[in-house]
């Protein structure tokens, strides 16, 4: 009995904490890094007062948010108002259950991992729409409508681009999808090359899904203040914040796994040397490569935000429906032909 409890409850929870705690820390560091990077791009210093180089800024912000008053607007629906942040946070975190970090480092190696991920990322929209409706404020409602419409529009393009990945990989299991990208040509075996347009569509859709600049009309501080979470304060706001940044990091990881070979090394097959383990990972692949790739992808989010002006709402909708969906529909067939005529020998890799 005791051993069963250990194996079925205690160990999984420990593993979950091994994912969730670094994720929370990564969010904190990512917020700091975002402010620092955008500061540098604006030729400013960025945060530099709290701790060395301002490193503790994010933690100071967390403490500040936690000791602020949580305001419940008088006309809000109490239950839904508090439920909405939870509905935003849970999918953003639970999606990590199927993300493979390494060959064997995955919490739940389920065979429908990709479907589960799609389900989880789709659920995030409930948090948005409920937050806007429950607040009973015009700005919140308008922001929620805009956000929800935008998120579901880009979800179509995202789903179609994942179908392309699926055609080449032939499996819904994320570990198998990474294995399908292994081969003797290193980074030229990864799916970004045969699926280049889809890779770009996927990442831009990811930016739009997380309501980030230049697709952040929902926030649009100059017109509708902060969008769906305008009425939230203190820790309730912190939860939305946590969910948004966890989603950004998730999209970066998923783009790395689907298109950039996950933990595989870009030098795989180029070097055949027998070196000690601490050098070997450079060409055999390890979690370090996944972290490097995800870091570079998440840097793009910040770069976009510092570079591009905000899109107009009709432009966002036009891009999603009239550009991305046609591109991905065509590429589903192209990917099918590539697979059928053997132009991409995915699934045969080592």
């Amino acid at each position: 009995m005791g051993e069963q409890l250990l194996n079925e409850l205690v160990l999984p929870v420990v593993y979950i904490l091994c994912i969730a705690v670094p994720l929370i820390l990564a969010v904190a560091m990512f917020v700091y890094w975002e402010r620092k990077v955008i500061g540098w791009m604006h030729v400013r210093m960025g945060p530099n007062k709290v701790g060395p180089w301002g490193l503790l800024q994010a933690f100071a912000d967390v403490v500040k948010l936690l000791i602020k008053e949580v305001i419940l607007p008088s006309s809000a629906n109490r239950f839904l108002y508090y439920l909405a942040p939870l509905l935003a946070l849970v999918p953003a975190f639970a999606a990590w259950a199927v993300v493979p970090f390494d060959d064997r480092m995955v919490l739940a190696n389920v065979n429908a991992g990709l479907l589960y991920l799609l389900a989880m990322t789709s659920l995030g929209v409930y948090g948005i729409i409920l937050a806007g409706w429950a607040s009973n404020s015009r700005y919140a409602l308008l922001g929620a409508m805009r956000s929800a419409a935008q998120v579901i529009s880009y979800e179509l393009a995202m789903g179609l681009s994942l179908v392309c990945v699926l055609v080449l990989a032939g499996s819904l299991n994320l570990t198998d999808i990474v294995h399908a990208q292994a081969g003797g040509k290193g980074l030229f075996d990864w799916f970004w090359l045969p699926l280049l347009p889809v890779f770009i569509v996927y990442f831009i859709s990811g930016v739009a899904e997380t309501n980030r600049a230049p697709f952040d009309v929902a926030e649009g501080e100059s017109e509708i203040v902060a969008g769906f979470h305008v009425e939230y304060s203190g820790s309730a706001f912190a939860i939305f914040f946590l969910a948004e940044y966890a989603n950004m990091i998730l999209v970066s990881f998923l783009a790395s796994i689907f298109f950039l070979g996950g933990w595989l090394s870009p030098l795989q097959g180029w070097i055949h040397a027998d070196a000690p383990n601490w050098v070997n990972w450079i060409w055999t692949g390890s979690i370090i490569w996944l972290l490097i790739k995800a870091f570079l992808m998440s840097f793009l989010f910040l770069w976009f935000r510092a570079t591009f002006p905000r899109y107009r709402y009709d432009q966002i909708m036009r891009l999603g429906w009239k550009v991305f969906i046609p591109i991905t529909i065509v590429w589903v067939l192209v990917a099918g032909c590539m697979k059928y005529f053997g132009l991409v020998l995915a699934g045969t890799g080592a």
Partner: protein
Amino acid sequence: MLAQYWPILLFIGVAAGLGVVLLIIGMLAGPRRPAAIKLAPYECGFEAFEDARMRFDVRYYLLAILFIIFDLEIAFLFPWAVVFQHIGLVALIEMALFLLLLVVGFAYVWKKGALEWE
């Protein structure tokens, strides 16, 4: 088989627990000094005229319907993509036909102006 999904369920529970704990900490650690003005819905300085849950643009509704249709179509593509390599040419042609039907519907929606936001 199904046991593999147990950690996922646990993860959902842990995430929900984290959210609840954060909310409770916020409510316990933060002050609570309600005031009529503070609790009023945000309206840029004046009082709200009426309930915020007003009528909204019908295009959002149209978009939601289109989303359901197209998302269903994508859901049909998933099983095809998984078994595609085992079926071969038949699957390729079949899916080309399916996508053709999808594109006809898409072109109709486009032509009717359902995707316009001016």
